[in-house]
């Protein structure tokens, strides 16, 4: 089995020998020009010199003696050229590394020249770092047509021949209007510079013009990493997963948890991808921190429904995280120091303008505090390492290599020789190759591998431990065919091999006095094919439809058991290596539509069917990441299925800089899993005996109102939703609310820029309490007071609410090579105790602590206790950047 570790090693080796590239004029390059009535020839020479670009023009076709006036300070090359175009009736275009100036053809209206159509294509990048921009807009106002760049920054737009003003824009970046005569296919790689006045804005969704309005999907949210950085966080440690809590329809289990629930789905129904590779457990330190380093992230795209056909494997959501490619022009070091962790990220070019790297790491020093109280806690840490390399092999080929490794290790008493504790690690690696078959056909081929290991360390010295793991090795190819401005076809396929170890003991010392059960490992192969079309039927109405075909095959070598209806094993089936013994085939139709009702209004609707072939099998109610076991769909576990319908409304209030999003959804889920009372989950070869199956149902509505511009910005999100389960042999077969059924979910986020250097942010969350089962009566047995539960999830924890504030201050008065800032955070400002559990089995010990009774005579007096994690937690962070 090729593990992620191996893949990462390969990536490192491969990348060392690579580099090549080409360079085009940088239209975003800043320059100043002050010419009044100067000769055009002189102005062109000045532009060439100042902007360091090769200009090509014919003195026979252009009147170089005409006078022009240009007064621009710190303007982009594109702006100056546009002014020149306007005054001198010129036009310009990029041909390879030259800027070609030619006579203009002023046309008020588009006059298609015959039946010819040409394609405009290229990449859209950030000017400063050359980082590709995902979801940037290319729009032709004259035709009312446009497109957005894909996850690799590529766009393609086929138009009738003619003269156009093309607008390139991306939220928070300067808009460039590009004048061109489209008389042949053109490649325009556009670079957009940050708009200084918008640097401090916080947005949750990028929606800035007509193209986006017409393409809004239901349930799709793009969370900007910069907004995550601003949000107050526990110990000042920015947390991508916790930030999801601010999005209506997504709720976290509670404090100390990275477990989250989307639109009534269970916690294992969320697919988290980092550069296409899945991350099975995004938690550090049991869930208090998340695995993602915000500084390494370029884009976070969240789908709560209407998941594109190219993605699948989970029922409820897709969290698609894209990491930074690295600056191809200069080396940048940034980092931060906090109370719990230190982070550093280094990015820069291998070859300037051609290839780049991005390396970031994080380590915790919580051990130092813990050792004050528990000296034997010698290994107590978590670490992260993100590595990414980016090569432009040719104008048509790009290669991206990504690696991620994260580890948690909490072991007590290692020096005494009997250290025990828990550890887990995530590994992920991807090799992605972009290839342009033509300016209309873009492909991305990805080889990726992920592995998640969870260990319960029994004895460090003897190397005795319990381990479970899940791993995959996948190869996929995705094609995007930009057939016309109205039709974008996506198609592709994937093959994956999954490996599961549902938890086994690895005993290297004497196994002792009892036999250790063996839980058979599982292997599965997954084939996927998909086809989807993004079809703009009219300028106002677009339709997205697609079909995903999944084939899941269970393979030997393994053993399966056959059970009767009372869950008793009746037969044992042994399969040889490579033998396919079970196949599930599932078709997943997806359809979505958007109608742009006006310049600022759109309506949207979608239906999607999703299938899930693997499940986290745990009956834990802890908010923490527990000893986790994954099981594949197999003869005893049918694939989970979901059908989701959603309808939405989007309204932009341009003058007030407000966006309003409303969505209603309903979701039906099949083959949902719950557990028999006190299911025996670990080291149980017959773990399927403990599973109970049934259906789930969720419905609700979500509202998001956000202010996206100005000194004061932020959003209010509210969701009302319900989530139900009906599972055989659970709750007397009656329907019951899921534990994560939290009808009310309100989030309130505000950020205020006091000055260019000083920002204050606040975050307030309110949620209905988590549902749980409380006793309806008790009985005595051998001195123990034993609870009786008559209804599942009949009670709720108290409502959850919390206010956090943070303030960030830029220490430098003016931008410098070394810039640094300081952030103060007060997490849970009003010291709210949000219980994570209520128990009924404690008595009061002599020191006043609640404890489990140790003596049964005299009969202990019991009382209810609540357990919570955080009160008010202050934090300070120091953040620096060196360019």
């Amino acid at each position: 089995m090729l593990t992620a570790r191996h893949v990462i090693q390969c990536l490192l080796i491969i990348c060392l020998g690579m580099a090549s590239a080409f360079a085009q004029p940088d239209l975003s390059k800043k320059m100043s020009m002050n010419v009044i009535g100067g000769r055009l020839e002189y102005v062109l020479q000045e532009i060439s010199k100042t902007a360091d670009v090769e200009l090509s023009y014919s003195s026979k076709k252009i009147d170089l003696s005409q006078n022009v006036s240009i007064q621009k300070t710190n303007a982009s090359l594109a702006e100056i050229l546009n002014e020149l175009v306007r005054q001198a009736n010129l036009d310009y275009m990029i041909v390879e590394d030259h800027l070609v100036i030619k006579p203009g053809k002023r046309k008020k209206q588009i006059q298609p020249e015959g039946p010819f159509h040409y394609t405009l294509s290229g990449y859209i990048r950030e000017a400063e770092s050359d980082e590709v921009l995902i979801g940037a807009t290319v729009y032709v106002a004259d035709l009312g047509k446009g497109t957005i760049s894909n996850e690799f920054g590529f766009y393609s737009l086929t138009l009738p021949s003619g003269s156009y003003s093309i607008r390139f824009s991306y939220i928070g970046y300067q808009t460039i209007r590009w004048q061109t005569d489209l008389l042949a296919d053109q490649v325009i790689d556009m670079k957009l510079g940050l708009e200084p006045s918008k640097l401090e804005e916080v947005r949750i969704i990028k929606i800035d013009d007509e193209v986006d309005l017409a393409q809004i999907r239901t349930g799709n949210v793009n969370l900007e990493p910069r907004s995550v950085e601003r949000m107050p966080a526990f110990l000042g440690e920015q947390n991508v997963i916790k930030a999801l809590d601010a999005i209506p329809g997504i709720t976290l289990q509670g404090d100390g948890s990275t477990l989250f629930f989307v639109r009534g789905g269970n916690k294992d129904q969320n697919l988290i991808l980092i550069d296409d590779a899945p991350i099975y457990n995004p938690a550090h330190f049991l869930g208090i921190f998340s695995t993602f380093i915000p500084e390494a992230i370029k884009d976070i795209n969240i789908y709560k429904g209407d998941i594109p056909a190219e993605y699948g494997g989970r029922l409820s959501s897709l969290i698609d995280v894209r990491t930074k490619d690295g600056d191809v022009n200069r080396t940048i070091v940034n980092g931060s120091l906090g109370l719990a962790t230190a982070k550093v990220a280094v990015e820069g070019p291998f070859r300037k303008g051609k290839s780049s790297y991005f390396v970031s790491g994080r380590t915790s020093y919580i051990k130092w505090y813990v050792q004050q109280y528990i000296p034997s806690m010698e290994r107590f840490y978590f670490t992260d390492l993100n590595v990414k390399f980016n090569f432009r092999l040719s104008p048509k080929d790009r290669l991206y290599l990504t690696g991620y490794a994260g580890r948690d290790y909490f072991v007590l008493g290692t020096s005494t020789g009997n250290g025990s504790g828990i550890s887990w690690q995530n590994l992920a690696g991807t090799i992605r190759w972009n290839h342009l078959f033509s300016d209309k056909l873009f492909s991305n081929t990805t080889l990726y591998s992920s592995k998640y290991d969870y260990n319960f360390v029994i004895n460090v010295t003897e190397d005795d431990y319990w381990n479970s793991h899940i791993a995959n090795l996948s190869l996929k190819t995705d094609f995007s065919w930009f057939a016309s401005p109205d039709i974008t076809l996506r198609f592709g396929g994937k093959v994956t091999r999954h490996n599961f170890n549902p938890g086994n003991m690895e005993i290297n010392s004497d196994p002792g006095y009892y036999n250790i059960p063996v839980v058979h490992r599982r292997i599965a192969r997954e084939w996927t094919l998909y086809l989807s079309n993004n079809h703009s039927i009219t300028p106002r109405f677009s339709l997205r439809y697609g079909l995903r075909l999944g084939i899941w095959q269970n393979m030997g070598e393994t053993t399966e058991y056959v059970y009767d209806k009372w869950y008793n094993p009746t037969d044992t089936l042994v399969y040889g290596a490579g033998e396919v013994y079970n196949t599930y085939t599932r078709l997943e139709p997806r359809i979505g539509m958007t109608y742009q009702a006006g310049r600022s209004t759109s309506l949207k609707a979608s239906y999607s069917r999703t299938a899930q072939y693997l499940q986290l099998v745990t009956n834990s109610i802890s908010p923490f990441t527990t000893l986790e076991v994954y099981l594949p769909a197999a003869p005893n576990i049918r694939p989970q299925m979901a059908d989701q319908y959603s309808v939405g409304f989007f309204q932009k209030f341009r003058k007030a800089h407000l966006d309003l999003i409303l969505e209603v959804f309903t979701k039906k889920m099949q083959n949902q899993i719950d557990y028999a009372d006190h299911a025996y989950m670990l080291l149980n070869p017959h773990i399927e005996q403990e599973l109970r199956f049934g259906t789930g149902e969720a419905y609700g509505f979500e509202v998001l109102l956000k202010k996206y511009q100005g000194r004061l910005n932020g959003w209010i999100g509210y969701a009302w939703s319900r989530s139900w389960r009906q599972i055989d042999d659970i709750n007397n077969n009656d329907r019951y609310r899921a534990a994560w059924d939290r009808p009310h979910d309100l989030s309130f986020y505000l950020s205020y820029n006091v000055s260019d250097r000083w920002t204050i942010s606040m975050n307030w969350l309110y949620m209905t309490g988590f549902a749980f089962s409380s006793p309806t009566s008790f009985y005595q047995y051998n001195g123990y007071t034993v609870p009786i539960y008559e209804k599942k999830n009949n009670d709720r924890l108290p409502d959850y609410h919390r206010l956090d504030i943070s303030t960030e201050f830029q220490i430098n008065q003016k931008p410098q090579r070394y810039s640094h800032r300081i952030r103060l955070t007060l997490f849970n400002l009003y010291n709210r105790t949000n219980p994570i559990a209520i128990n009924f089995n404690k008595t009061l010990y002599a020191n006043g602590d609640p404890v489990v009774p140790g003596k049964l005579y005299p009969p202990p007096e019991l009382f209810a206790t609540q357990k919570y994690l955080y009160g008010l937690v202050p934090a300070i962070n120091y953040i620096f950047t060196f360019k």
Partner: protein
Amino acid sequence: MKQSTNISSILLLLPLIFISCEEKTDWELDTNEPKMIVVEGVLTNERKAHEVSISRPMTDLNGTPQPISGALVAIWERDQANNFKAHRLHEVQPGRYLTDSTVRAVFGRLYMLFILYQGQEYSGRSYLVPVDQLEPLRYHQVPGKELWYELNFRETDRPSMVEISLNWGHLIGFRNLPAEQTRARIVYYTVKSIDVNKIFRPAKERVPFPVGTRVYRRQYSMNESQEEFVRTLMAETEWRGGLFDVQPGNVRTNLSEGAVGYFSVSQVVADSSVILPLN
């Protein structure tokens, strides 16, 4: 410099001070009066009168169980040749039913408990498995309290229950104290399962006792079914409230018709000793 060090120390420690706490709370339970019966029956290899107690569940966490009187209770034993023998139990106190003093469980036989109450017949069955020998009693001094000790518990090889009665009421200085202050009953279970909530179970009350305490130990064997019952019993009592809690659920039982509790059959070994000072 010193001041800045102090400030940074405070900032570093504050998060820890505020993290994780458990406190008493008033929680209003939505209780009801269930119709089920609670059975606690233990049959051992000892020749004596064995007891089965029957009661109703209680709605108060610290309530007193309401005994059930007037039930017909019998234990049947079946040997390998399918010969049956019945032992009728007699109610000696409300809710307490005893066999006669000649009954004892033996290996290779199946024991079945039958209860007839208000027209409903409840039953449960169990069998005897061997018990491990008692290990020498181990204890250690309570830190900072000379001549006060606590028991060390070590799991037995096979699933078992160890019941320990401590009595120091005969010692000078304790003679006039009420029994609640001079006696303790402790139960330890050995369950061979690996459960997350067991591994990370919450803190348990410590039970110190003085030198000279009389210790009476009884170790009961547990068959597979009883071990499973105890595993779930512990999940709802001693193991609940730890770091990795599991879904609450009803404790398993070997009784029919919705009755709760357990009818167990065990082999028992016992010893007694006196706590002596440790060197």
